[in-house]
C-alpha cells in the first residue's frame, strides 16, 4: 500500500514537473502587491496596471525574445501590507514560481525587505512606487544594489521640490511636520523635507511623530497649533491623511496642508471629502496633463477598470515597460541577461514622463508634478524639474 502511494506521488510530481517543462514558451513575471492590509487601493492599482500591460503584450502575440515570440504569464502575490510577508512573497516567487523578474512591492516599508531577498537571490526587482533611497542601496556598503531598480524618483528630490514649493509658491516661512516614525517612507521624506526647508531659509517650528495604526493625533496637533506654522506637511499614506486633517480642523487649525506622492490615490478623496479641498501634493504624473504616450494608457485603463489610473498604476505600467524593453534587448529569458540589459538602459519614455538613468545608479532622473485638490478632483498645478 505504502509503495503504491509513493509511486503515485512520484508520478504526480513528475507530471507537474513535466508540464512546467513543456510550457517553455511562456515568460513568468512576478508581482508583489498590497492587496490587503492598510493600503489595498495601492495594491489593486498595481495589479490592474500589471494585468493591462501583460494583456497588451499577449494580445500582440507575445514578447519578441531572440528569435521567438513568448507569451507572458503573470504571478501575483499579496503581501497583506506586512514587511515579513513581502519578503516571503519575494522568496516564493523566486524559488517556487521561478519568475524571471519581479515588479513591486510599492510602499517603501515593504519594498525594502523584498529587495533584500531579490538582491541575494540575484533576481531583478523593479519597484514602481518606493521612493525611499534605501530601497536601491545596499545597507552595508552604501553602494547601489545590483538587482533592484525603480520606476519613480526618490525622496531627496521630492523633499527638495516640496520644500521649495512651500517657501516660494505658498510663501510659508514656518512649517510643521507630522509623520509616521515607524514607516521608512514617511520618516525618510520628512527628514529630507526638514533639511531642504531649513537650507532654503525656512524654519521648522514643530517636527512631530506617531506610529503606524495610531488614530488619535490630537496631542501632536495641539502642539503644532501652539507652534503657529504657516503650512503643515503630512508625508503620510492616504488612509491616515484624512483623519489627520479632520482632527486638525476640529482643533481649530486653519493652516493649509501639503503632502507627498503617498496622497495620490482616489481613495484619499473618498475618505477625506471636502476637508481636503485646496491642498497641494507632489506626485509622479498628472492624468489631466499627460503626454500622448500616457493618453492611450489612461483611456485603456479607464475602459478596463472604470477608473482613472492613479500614480501607482502609471508607475507599474512603466515598470513593466522597462522590463519588456530590457527582455527584448537581452534577447533571452535569463535573469542575469535581463539585469545587464536593464542596467545599461540610458533613457526611457514612459507614461510618467521621460526617465534618464545614470551609469552607476538604479534611480531614474525624472520630473515631478504638483497637484491641487479641487472640487474632489486632482488637478494639475505645476511641474518641477530635477
Amino acid at each position, binding site marked *: 500500500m505504502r509503495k503504491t502511494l509513493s509511486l503515485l506521488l512520484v508520478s504526480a510530481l513528475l507530471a507537474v514537473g513535466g508540464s512546467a517543462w513543456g510550457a517553455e514558451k511562456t515568460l513568468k513575471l512576478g508581482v508583489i502587491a498590497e492587496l490587503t492590509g492598510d493600503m*489595498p487601493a495601492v495594491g489593486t492599482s498595481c495589479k490592474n496596471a500589471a494585468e493591462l500591460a501583460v494583456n497588451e503584450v499577449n494580445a500582440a502575440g507575445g514578447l519578441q525574445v531572440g528569435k521567438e515570440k513568448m507569451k507572458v504569464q503573470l504571478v501575483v502575490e499579496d503581501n497583506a501590507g506586512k514587511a515579513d510577508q513581502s519578503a516571503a512573497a519575494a522568496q516564493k516567487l523566486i524559488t517556487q514560481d521561478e519568475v524571471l523578474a519581479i515588479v513591486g512591492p510599492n510602499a517603501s516599508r515593504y519594498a525594502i525587505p523584498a529587495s533584500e531577498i531579490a538582491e541575494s537571490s540575484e533576481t531583478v526587482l523593479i519597484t514602481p512606487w518606493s521612493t525611499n533611497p534605501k530601497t536601491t542601496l545596499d545597507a552595508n556598503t552604501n553602494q547601489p544594489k545590483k538587482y533592484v531598480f525603480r520606476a519613480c524618483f526618490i525622496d531627496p528630490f521630492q523633499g527638495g521640490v516640496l520644500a521649495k514649493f512651500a517657501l516660494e509658491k505658498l510663501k510659508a516661512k514656518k512649517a510643521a511636520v507630522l509623520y509616521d516614525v515607524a514607516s521608512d517612507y514617511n520618516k525618510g521624506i520628512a527628514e529630507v523635507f526638514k533639511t531642504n526647508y531649513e537650507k532654503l531659509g525656512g524654519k521648522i517650528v514643530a517636527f512631530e*511623530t506617531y506610529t503606524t495604526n*495610531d488614530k488619535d493625533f490630537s*496631542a501632536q496637533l*495641539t502642539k503644532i497649533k501652539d507652534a503657529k506654522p504657516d503650512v503643515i506637511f503630512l508625508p503620510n499614506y492616504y488612509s491616515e491623511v484624512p483623519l489627520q486633517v*479632520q482632527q486638525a480642523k*476640529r482643533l481649530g487649525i486653519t493652516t493649509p496642508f501639503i503632502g507627498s506622492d503617498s496622497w495620490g490615490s482616489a481613495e484619499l478623496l473618498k475618505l477625506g471629502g471636502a476637508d481636503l479641498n485646496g491642498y497641494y501634493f507632489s506626485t509622479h504624473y498628472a492624468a489631466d496633463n499627460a503626454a500622448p504616450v500616457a493618453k492611450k494608457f489612461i483611456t485603456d485603463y479607464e475602459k478596463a477598470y472604470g477608473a482613472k489610473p492613479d500614480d501607482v498604476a502609471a508607475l507599474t505600467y512603466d515598470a513593466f515597460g522597462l522590463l519588456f524593453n530590457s527582455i527584448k534587448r537581452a534577447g533571452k529569458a535569463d535573469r542575469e541577461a535581463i539585469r545587464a540589459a536593464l542596467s545599461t538602459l540610458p533613457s526611457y519614455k514612459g507614461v510618467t514622463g521621460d526617465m534618464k538613468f545614470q551609469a552607476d545608479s538604479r534611480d531614474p532622473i525624472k520630473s515631478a508634478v504638483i497637484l491641487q485638490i479641487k472640487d474632489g478632483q486632482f488637478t494639475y498645478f505645476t511641474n518641477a524639474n530635477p
Partner: protein
Amino acid sequence: MSEGIVYWLQQILNALQLGSIYALIALGYTMVYGILTMINFAHGDVFMVGAFFCFLAATYLGLPFAPTLLLTMIGAALVGVLLERLAYKPLRNAPRVSAIITALGLGLFLENFTLALAPYPKHIPPLLENVSWDLGGVSLSSLQVIIIFLSLGLMFLLDYVVHRTPVGMAMRAISWDKTFVPLMGVPVDLIISVTFAIGAGLAGAAGTMYALAYPVIDPYMGIMVGWKAFISAVIGGIGNIRGAMIGAFILGGVEIMVTAFFPSTYRDFVAFTLLLLLIVVRPYGILGKPRTQKV
C-alpha cells in the same frame, strides 16, 4: 487666558476623549476577568466589529446617531454572547491556557472575516453635525462633549447595575465563588452570558464613538486599541470595574501628556515605562486586591 493654560486645557480635553474610549473597552476585559478569571483577547476585535456595525447602519440603513448607537450596541452584544456560548462555554472547565488560545484565535477569525468582506478602509459618514466652540482659545467640539459624557453616563449606569441590582449582585456572587453560588439558585450560565453581552455592548458603543471621532475604519483597528484597553484594565486592577475606568483615564492622560511634554517620538517608550513603574509599586493595579491562594 494665557497661552500656556490654553495649551494645557486643550491637552487635558484630548486626554479625556481618548481615556473615555479606552475606558469603555477596558470595562469588557475587566468584567469577564472578574467573573471567569479569563482574559478575553478577542474583545478588541468585538470593538472593531462594533465600528463596522456602525458603518453598516449609518451607510446602508441611513440611520441617524441614536438608532445607530443602539443597533451597534445590540449587534456587538449578540456577537459577545455568541462567542461565549460557542467558544468559551465548552472550555469553562478546561485549562485556562486553552481558553486564552481560543480567545486569540477568535480575535484572528473576526479580523480576517471582516477583512474578507471589507478589504478597503471604510469611511464613516458624519452622523452628528459637528460644532466647534472656541472658549478663549481652547476649541471644544460637540463630538468631544458627546463622547466624554456618553461614556461617563454608560460607566455610571454600569456601576449602578453591578452594585445596586439583583443581576449585579449575582455577577459579584459568581465572581466570589463558583461552587456554592449555583446551589443558591443563581442561573450561572445566564449571568455569564449577560456579563458578556454588557461587556460587548459597551465595546460596541466605544466602536461607534471611535468611528465618529476617527472616521476611517479597518479590520485591524481593534488590535492596538484593544491592547491599550487591556493595559488600562491591568493598571486599574483587573477584575475591578472602577479600577478599569481609572486605569483608562490614566493611560489616556499619560499618552497625551508625554506627547505634550517630550518629543512625540518617545511617547510609547516613556508612557509604558511609567506604567511599568506603577505596576512595580502596585502589582495588583490601583484598586486591585491581592488574592491569597489557599493550598
